[in-house]
């Protein structure tokens, strides 16, 4: 929906009192009525409308072409944990948003660290880590790397492939995501590989203060963030991993946070739970378009 530049049709431009400002207005208005009110002929208006429609319509793509494109561009990134990989149907899929939700101290950030380390060390690809709570501790990443290899140079190289952004509000997050689309993704790709994963830990920390109450913008900002993440995943073949909190219902049952509107955004959702008495954690697949929900 672009403003009609005055140059394309000076007659319409000069009759701005007709309330036709945008392409949308022209296409949806009554051509006969418009022809009567301004000095442009009916045929000319019809031709203009046809051109505008042709310029702005979406092209249909066949399912087979889409499938071919998906096969050639999707990669599956292992998380470093074989049972988690099995739950995710072999790993994190590029082009999709995967969500990890869980209560406090259930291990969400630890899984994110582990994924980042695995992609940067084992797969030798770059990772972008967006930290919204200050919890990212490089010493912990190094600890995980030291388990994999003793070679200090390899450890340093793997750490260099992880780029950390620290942001604490939604506009900074949106700015970061759009800048990444612009040029920063190439800059973040270090050491030959390209950025294969973007981890946002946690997306609910920046979004939950905006939702509810008298704030009308919260929902729209949440959808903007969702849109930016999904299109980035699709356009750049990146696996997007986000973490979310959980809310507790009246009878104690847990639900992922951010409400029903957000629940459609991730393709796959995993719930992490910590069991106090056995001090183990469990992962449950609660939403997937590929698998049956399981533990």
């Amino acid at each position, binding site marked *: 929906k672009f403003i009609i530049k005055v140059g394309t049709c000076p007659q319409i431009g000069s009759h701005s009192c007709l309330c036709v400002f945008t392409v949308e207005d022209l296409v949806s208005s009554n051509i006969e009525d418009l022809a009567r009110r301004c000095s442009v002929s009916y045929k000319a208006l019809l031709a203009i409308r046809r051109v505008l429609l042709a310029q702005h319509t979406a092209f249909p793509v066949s399912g087979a072409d889409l499938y071919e494109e998906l096969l050639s561009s999707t990669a599956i990134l292992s998380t470093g944990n074989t049972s988690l990989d099995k739950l995710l149907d072999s790993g994190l899929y590029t082009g999709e948003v995967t969500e990890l939700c869980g209560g406090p101290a259930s291990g969400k950030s630890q899984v994110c660290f582990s994924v980042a380390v695995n992609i940067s060390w084992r797969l030798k690809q770059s990772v972008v880590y967006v930290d919204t*709570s200050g919890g990212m501790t490089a010493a912990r990443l190094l*600890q995980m790397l030291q388990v994999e290899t003793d070679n200090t140079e390899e450890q340093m190289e793997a750490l260099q492939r992880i780029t950390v952004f620290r942001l604490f509000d939604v506009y900074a997050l949106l700015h970061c995501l759009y800048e990444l689309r612009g040029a920063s993704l190439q800059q973040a790709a270090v050491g030959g590989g390209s950025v294969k994963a973007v981890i946002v830990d946690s997306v609910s*920390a920046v979004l939950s203060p905006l939702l*509810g109450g008298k704030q009308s913008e919260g929902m729209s900002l949440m959808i903007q963030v969702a849109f*930016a993440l999904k299109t980035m995943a699709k356009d750049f073949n990146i696996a997007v991993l986000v973490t979310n909190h959980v809310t507790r219902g009246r009878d104690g049952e847990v639900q992922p946070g951010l409400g029903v509107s957000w629940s459609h955004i991730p393709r796959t959702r995993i719930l992490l739970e910590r069991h106090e008495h056995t001090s183990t954690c469990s992962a449950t697949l609660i939403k997937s378009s590929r698998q049956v929900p399981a533990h």
Partner: protein
Amino acid sequence: MQRPLSTLPLSSAVKAKLVTAGFHFISDLMNLKAPQLSREAGVSQQEAMAVLAELEQGVPPPSMSALQLLQKEAELQSIITFCSSLDGALGGGVPLGKTTEIYGVPGIGKTQLCLQLAVDVQVPQCFGGVGGEVIFMDTEGTFVLQRFAELAAAAVTHCSLLAEDEEQRVAMETFTVDTILSNTYVVRCHDYVELLAELRLLPSILAARPKVRLLVMDGMAAPFRPLLDDLSARTRHLGGVALQLAAVATGHDVAVVVTNQMTTRLLGGGRSRLVPALGELWGHALNIRLHLHWEGSQRLATIAKSPAHANVTVQYQISSDGFRDVDQSHAAGAK
């Protein structure tokens, strides 16, 4: 791909006017001057200038590689607690640049630990301390000056006994009870509105006092009690507080320590459990959570949540000198 105007931090009234005028993306506003924009969108000159100012923020956001972050973390120290087992479990003490929550039942020693940290952050660097100042935000009136002076005196005595070389002796001249008291800034907040206002002013306060290395908020639960009948408002405020504290901690290399109370969660079937107050979402807010609890007559501290430390439990005690290891007192008692 085009970036929509709704991703900019503008007021909703201005956004509505821009959208009605047909401006949807940032690229639509390129090369427009303020008077032109003001005319076409029907906004005032000032609003048009504010909109265009937001556009000029096309700077890439600051980032660093994990390697650079590792180097930075190595430079950042931790604040010792004088309880060596807890310091060991935390890898040196309460870390700078992170937010820590201390929760436990009343009387377990939360405020004592906060007062101890407020003294310990001022220990000079040649003794292995941080040598910084402290802002103490008191919401429940728990800051008792006499007790703080006692802890300060005990720390000064401890360090003067340890002073070996010339540098340490010189440092002891500036590490006295008086200087400790004068480097502690106490702020009294009576309700959540004052708390939120104080947090909003915090960046400018920290800019004016660059030596501050510790922010203590003793009592996060009490000011929010009037909001118990509007829990969603409380959750929103707390979410905002969490983001602000994280920004302060990482942006100014300050350790943020917050204390919280316990509340009862009903589990159904007549059972209940003691859990930290302020709700589920607050549990995610801070990086490190220390749970202080009783086991019989012994006080224990458990690391309930941390990105980089294991979940260990250590013993501690509160003596007249402050927050200490259990063994020290036994050794002192035996003497």
